[in-house]
C-alpha cells in the first residue's frame, strides 16, 4: 500500500513530495517518474508533522465507559493528529497491576487508531501508601515506562524517594501530579487570588504545586533518577524547573493546551466546564508558560484529556468533576497560543508535540524525523483555515470542552499510523470501532 503526499511542507518548510510505502517513509523530495503510488493526496499548502504523542490522557476504561472508552478516546486522538497516547492509571480498577495495563493495551490495539501506552500507578490503588508493582508492569506486554498517580499527588516524601529509586531498574520515569494536599486539598478548585476571594471558591495556591516540584527535583537529584512534572500551571514552577535543569537534574515537564490559553477570570460564570486540576491561573502564569514552552524549559504539550459525563458536571462548581476534553482541540489551541503569537514555529510544534514526548515516553517509532526509512507516523495539518469547535460533533463520548463554539486557526486534515490513514479530510476513515 503506497501513498504519495504531493506538495506537503514537512515541519512547515519547503513543499516536497513524500512517498509512504508499507508503513515506512520511502522517499522525501522529487520522486522518479517511475514511482506509481496506489494513491496520491494533494497536500498543497498543508504542513506535514510527525504524529503527535500525548503523554497524558484519560481514557476512562475500565470503569467509566459512559464518559469515554479506549476506542472513543483513540478516535478523538486520531482526529487530533495523535499517533500515540499515554493512558493514565486512575481508572476503576486502578491500573496498578500488569493485568489491568495489559487489558488497556489490548483495547488500544483492537481499536487500532493510535498506539495506546498505559501508564502504571506509582502506589497501590493511588492511595499514596505503598509502591505498586512497578517492575511487573514494566515487564508486562504493556511495557510500561511512565508511572503516575495522576489525579493524586505522591505526597509522602519517603514513598516518592522509594519510587524514584526503584524505577531506575526498569528505565522508567515518575510523572508527578504536584499538589500538596495540606495546601490544596480535594475541595480546592480555583486559583488562589482575587477571583477565588471574590467568588467564594476554595483557593488552590500556586505554592501547593511549586513546593512539591521543588522537593521532587531535589529528590531526583539525590536518587539520580528521572522526574517528569505533569501539567505545569504556574510561573513559579517554571522557575524551579529552569533552576533544576541548569543544575543538571534529569527533569522534564509538560503543559496543557488550556493552560496556554485560558485564565481564571472565566470562572466568574461558575461554569464547571472551566473546572480543571490544576486550575486555570492568571495572565502572568499563562505568559510564563508560553515562554517556557517556547524556550524548551517545558518540554512537551500534553492534553490531560479528561472526559466527564454531563451529570458529573451539572453541579455547583465546587461539587462538579475536574477536567476538560483536549485531544481534538490541542493542535488548534497550540496554533493560536504559540504559533499565532510567533513564539513557536511548526518545527517547534513538532518538537513539543511529538519528538520530545516520544523521547520522554521511550517510544522509538514515534516523533521520528520525516526522512526516508522512518516509520510513517504522521499528521497533515491545515494552518490556513479556521476551525470552529462543534462540541456535539466531537468523537469523544463526552462534551466537556471549554472551547465549544470557539474558532481555532488550525486543523488536522489527515493522520497516518504506520503508513495507514486513520483520518482523511478531517474525518475518521472507518468510523469509531466497536
Amino acid at each position, binding site marked *: 500500500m503506497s501513498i504519495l503526499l504531493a506538495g506537503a511542507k514537512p515541519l512547515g518548510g519547503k513543499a516536497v513530495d513524500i512517498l509512504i510505502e508499507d508503513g515506512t517513509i520511502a522517499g522525501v523530495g522529487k520522486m522518479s517518474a517511475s514511482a506509481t503510488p496506489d494513491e496520491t493526496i494533494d497536500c498543497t499548502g498543508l504542513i506535514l508533522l510527525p504524529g503527535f504523542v500525548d503523554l497524558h490522557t484519560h481514557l476512562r476504561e475500565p470503569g467509566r465507559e459512559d464518559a469515554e472508552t479506549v476506542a472513543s478516546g483513540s478516535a478523538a486522538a486520531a482526529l487530533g493528529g495523535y499517533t500515540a497516547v499515554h493512558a493514565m492509571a486512575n481508572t476503576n480498577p486502578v491500573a496498578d497491576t500488569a493485568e489491568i495495563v495489559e487489558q488497556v493495551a489490548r483495547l488500544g490495539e483492537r481499536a487500532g487508531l493510535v498506539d495506546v501506552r498505559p501508564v502504571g500507578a506509582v502506589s497501590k490503588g493511588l492511595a499514596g501508601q505503598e509502591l505498586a508493582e512497578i517492575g511487573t508492569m514494566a515487564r508486562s506486554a504493556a511495557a510500561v515506562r511512565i508511572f503516575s498517580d495522576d489525579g493524586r499527588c505522591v505526597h509522602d516524601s519517603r514513598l516518592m524517594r522509594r519510587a524514584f529509586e526503584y524505577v531506575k531498574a526498569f528505565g522508567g520515569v515518575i510523572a508527578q501530579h504536584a499538589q500538596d494536599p495540606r495546601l490544596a486539598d480535594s475541595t480546592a478548585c480555583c486559583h*488562589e487570588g*482575587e477571583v*477565588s*476571594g471574590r467568588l*467564594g471558591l476554595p483557593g488552590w495556591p500556586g505554592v501547593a504545586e511549586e513546593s512539591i516540584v521543588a522537593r521532587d527535583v531535589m529528590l531526583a537529584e539525590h536518587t539520580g533518577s528521572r522526574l517528569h512534572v505533569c501539567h505545569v500551571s504556574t510561573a513559579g514552577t517554571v522557575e524551579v524547573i529552569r533552576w533544576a535543569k541548569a543544575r543538571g537534574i534529569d527533569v522534564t515537564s509538560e503543559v496543557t493546551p488550556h493552560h496556554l490559553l485560558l485564565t481564571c477570570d472565566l470562572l466568574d460564570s461558575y461554569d464547571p466546564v472551566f473546572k480543571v486540576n490544576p486550575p486555570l491561573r492568571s495572565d502572568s502564569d499563562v505568559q510564563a508558560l508560553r515562554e517556557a514552552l517556547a524556550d524548551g524549559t517545558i518540554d512537551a504539550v500534553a492534553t490531560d484529556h479528561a472526559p466527564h459525563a454531563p451529570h458529573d458536571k451539572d*453541579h*455547583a462548581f*465546587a461539587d462538579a468533576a475536574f477536567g476538560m476534553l483536549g485531544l481534538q482541540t490541542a493542535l488548534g489551541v497550540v496554533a493560536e497560543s504559540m504559533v499565532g503569537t510567533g513564539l513557536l514555529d511548526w518545527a517547534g510544534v513538532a518538537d513539543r508535540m511529538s519528538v520530545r514526548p516520544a523521547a520522554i515516553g521511550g517510544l522509538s517509532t514515534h516523533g521520528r524525523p520525516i526522512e526516508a526509512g522512518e516509520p510513517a507516523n504522521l499528521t497533515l495539518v491545515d494552518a490556513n483555515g479556521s476551525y470552529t469547535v462543534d462540541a456535539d460533533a466531537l468523537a469523544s463520548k463526552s462534551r466537556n470542552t471549554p472551547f465549544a463554539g470557539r474558532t481555532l486557526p488550525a486543523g488536522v486534515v489527515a493522520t497516518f499510523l504506520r503508513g495507514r490513514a486513520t483520518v482523511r479530510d478531517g474525518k475518521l476513515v472507518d468510523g469509531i470501532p466497536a
Partner: protein
Amino acid sequence: MKNLLSAADLDRDEATAILDTAARMHAIQGREVKKLPPLRGRTIVNLFFEDSTRTRSSFEIAGKWLSADVINVSAKGSSVSKGESLRDTALTVAAMGVDALVVRHNASGAVQRIAGWVGCRVVNAGDGTHEHPTQALLDAYTLRNRLGDLEGRHVVIVGDITHSRVARSNVILLNTLGARVTLVAPPTLMPSGVASWTCETSWDLDATLSGKEFGDVDAVMMLRVQRERMSGGYFATEREYAINYGLSPQRLDLLAEHAPVLHPGPMNRGLEISSVAADSARSVVLDQVQAGVAVRMAVLYRLLAGAAEEEVLSV
C-alpha cells in the same frame, strides 16, 4: 428585576426602592391583620440544600403574609452523593409550576447555575461563602432606621471574612448606598485578593473601633465564627480569638453613642461577641430579625407582584 442573586444586581435606586417598600411592609406588620393580597395565586418554593431554620422561616412568613403559597423543599445531603445532578434537582422542582425559587446552597455559585437552568424567578438565600443579598438588605434597612441616610457612614465588619457571604454582600451593598466599609479579621481569615475590594482592611480591632485607623465608626457588625474553623488551623483557640477579635465590653465602650451593634446570628456568646455587648442597648439583633421579614416581603413583592418585563401589556 428578574432574579436577586447578588447584592451587585441592585443599583442605588433599586436598593433604595426595596428599602422603602420594606418600610411600608414593616409598618403593616404592626396591624392585627398581617396578610396582604398581592401575591395571591403565586407559588414560591424554598429550595434549601443547606440547613437554615431562621432564613427559611423568614422567607416562609414573608411569602405567606403576601398571600403566596409557600412550600419548603429540603434537598439537604449533597445531590452528588444521591447521584442526582444539581440541574435535575432544580428542574424537577421548578417543573411543578413554581413562580419563584428561594434557594440556599452550601456551594458558591450554585444558585447562579440554577437560575441559568430554570425559567422561574430565583432569589439567592445564601450560596456557599459567596453572597447573601437579602441579609445585606436587612442589615442596610436596620442601619438606615438607626442612622438615617447611609451616605458617608462608616461600617466596620469583624470576623471570618474569608468564609462569609454576609461580608461579601454587605461590602457591595453598603458601597452602593454610599457608605464605606472596613473589614477586620486575623490574617488567616482575610480572603485572598481582598486588597482589590472597595473597602479598607485591618488586623487591629482596637485601632479600628477607636476611630484611630480609619476614622469614626458609625456601626459594627460582628460575624459568627464557626468553631469548626479551628480544626482548619485558622486560629489557635477560642480564647485566642475572643481576646484579639471579640467584641468585649471594653471594645463596646470605644464606640460612639449612636453606633449600633449588628450580628447576623446565631451568636456565639463569649466568642465573637460578649454577652454584655449582645444584650446592650446598642444591639439591634432583634431589629435585624424583624427587618428580615419586611425586607424579604419587599423583595418577593418586587419580584413577583407585577408583570414580568416581557409581559407588560400596553395600557
